[in-house]
């Protein structure tokens, strides 16, 4: 069996407020799954349910083939890492690492062995006798990871573990986490609101909104083939350009734009019928410069505002009377007021039903 964590028809409500609704999620052994969403989407709540820190209203949670829906957190075979590190301030690092094992009445020698091993893996050997107050943010988070590590469990839960760190440290620890996952091959469930963390770490991403999963897929799928308007808008920075119009079965029309959807892969391989539709084009997928002339679809936009960002240049332009974001090369020289020839490849665009907001 390849299942590590299974969530079946999970419901959670506090009084009249429904937080999670009929949620199903199947996480494979050794998978790095990221729960991504803006605040209040239910991602942390779901993680707390898996950990057993919140009691569910209905449904089941299975971990490693065992129904743990009503088990205590410590009996579920999970380790958890928190945003605020949550280290016990009055205990040394060693005390922090061994507290759980002592509660589980693990023999002393075994505790010592596991603490040493975790300290080796995380390179916190010299810190073992210090108190958390004497550690830097990065070191604290390493100890917090170590606390999950010593438990020798199959499933690690991370609740925004990098959010309290500064940008540079965050990037470093991100790489370390990825390395750790490759080394340990545990199942990891990771909650974040940071797309970059999600894209870089995840085997699969579950994008959540209002207590349900909007899309579950690999980072590539999420980025290139968003299932619905919400995911399309949520992923990517700057976000996707959307143009509302009509789809007649072959062409997308909006104002002066009439675009034949050559090369576009429809969902379910059948060409959908005519309807109101919204096309989504990522700023970085807009073709500019010399290549624009040979693009499948060609338009002319007017430059309004230029934001040079070094590695690339973000251009706010007007296309068909609406604002249109274009990401160009960092060396691109454009000025406000200029006419900018652009090209669009329908194969890289996303087409949605305006009413259902689902991908076509």
């Amino acid at each position: 069996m390849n299942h590590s964590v299974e969530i079946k028809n999970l419901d959670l409500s506090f009084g009249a407020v429904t937080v999670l609704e009929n949620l199903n999620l199947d996480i494979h052994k050794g998978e790095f799954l990221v729960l991504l969403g803006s605040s209040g989407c239910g991602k942390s709540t779901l993680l707390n349910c898996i950990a057993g820190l919140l009691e569910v209203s209905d449904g089941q949670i299975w971990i490693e083939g065992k129904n743990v829906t009503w088990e205590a957190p410590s009996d579920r075979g999970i380790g958890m890492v928190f945003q605020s590190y949550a280290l016990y301030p009055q205990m040394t690092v060693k005390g922090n690492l061994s507290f759980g094992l002592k509660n589980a009445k693990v023999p002393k020698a075994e505790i010592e062995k596991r603490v040493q091993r975790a300290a080796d893996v995380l390179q916190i050997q010299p810190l073992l006798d210090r108190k958390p107050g004497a550690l830097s943010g990065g070191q604290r988070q390493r100890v917090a990871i170590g606390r999950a590590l010593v438990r020798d469990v199959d499933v690690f839960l991370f609740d925004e573990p990098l959010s309290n760190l500064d940008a540079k440290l965050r990037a470093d620890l991100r790489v370390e986490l990825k390395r750790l996952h490759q080394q340990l091959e545990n199942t990891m469930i990771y909650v974040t609101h940071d797309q970059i963390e999600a894209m870089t770490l995840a085997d699969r991403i579950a994008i959540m909104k209002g207590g349900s999963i909007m899309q579950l897929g690999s980072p590539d799928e999420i980025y290139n083939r968003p299932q619905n308007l919400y995911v399309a808008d949520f992923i990517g920075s700057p976000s996707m350009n959307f143009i509302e119009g009509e789809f007649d079965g072959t062409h997308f029309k909006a104002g002066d734009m009439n675009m034949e959807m050559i090369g576009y892969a429809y969902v379910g391989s059948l060409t959908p019928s005519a309807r109101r539709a919204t096309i989504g084009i990522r700023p970085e997928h807009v073709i500019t410069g010399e290549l624009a002339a040979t693009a499948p679809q060609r338009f002319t936009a007017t430059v309004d505002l230029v934001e040079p960002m070094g590695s690339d240049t973000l251009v706010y332009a007007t296309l068909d009377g609406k604002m249109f974001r274009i990401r160009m090369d960092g060396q691109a020289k454009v000025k406000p007021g200029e006419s900018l020839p652009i090209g669009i490849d329908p194969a890289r665009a996303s087409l949605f039903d305006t009413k259902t907001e689902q991908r076509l």
Partner: protein
Amino acid sequence: MASIDTDARSRAGRRPNRLFKNMNAKLASLPMMFTALVVFLGGTIWTITYSFTSSGLLPRLEWAGLEQYARLWSSRKWLVSIENLAIYGFLSLILTLVIAFILAALLDRKIRGEDTFRTIFLYPFALSFIVTGLVWQWILNPQFGVQDVVRDLGWTNFNFDPLNNPEIVLYGLLIAGLWQGTGLIMCIMLAGLRGIDEDIWKATRVDGIGTVKTYLVVIIPMMRPVFVTSLVLIGSGIVKLYDLVVAQTSGGPGISSEVPAKYVMTSMFGGQNLGQGFAASTMMMLSVIIILIPWAYLEFGGRKRG
């Protein structure tokens, strides 16, 4: 083998009984539940109930309607008590607020020795009302105290003998009460002043508003919650006024410094007149409720709207 496995699973998957959930917390809270329900709630209901009976030496469930209340409100001692409480309360409220605020404002003016001053203003609060009452009884002693000292200085007609003069005995209590109580309110006000953004001061200086005017027009309105808290604090302290009177004046001279709390105690434990005690204490509770409801409304009702 497989069947045992499923069996174990289904057992693990069963929702535990709600009643036993969080059992330790419930067990650990038993003393609190007992105190809240039996002592506080039960005791209050009991007293209110028995205030409608003719209980004398022992509590008896013999209905007497409002008779105890009628007797209470025709008792001269009770009326004096209420009047005393009203006068003492009014003066104590105003003076405590004014003195405490002025002291807090002075202490907040970046002065040297702030800690020393604060220590001196607050130490009476650490003392028992009995101690306070006895010290001031001694200081106001007509034979050896302030009156005597002033007369010795040459003002031989100086008269200040509050503890033997029914007309002014309340001021004797007030001097002692203020001495003990203002320090606390001052500390609260000081905390409130410290909570005000320093930029406010900069802004008023830029606008050219004088210091006193800034306090009156800007700072005091900003400290509304602190004043409300102080008001509640002083208010319920006043209703409970008892130890001080017992120690300083024993209610005298005559009955001129009686207070409701003392009336209750005398009726219940001295006069073997339980029904009167119950009725009087119910009245005390009523007065506290009258103070508290507007406050609760302001504090909680107001916040919900906002």
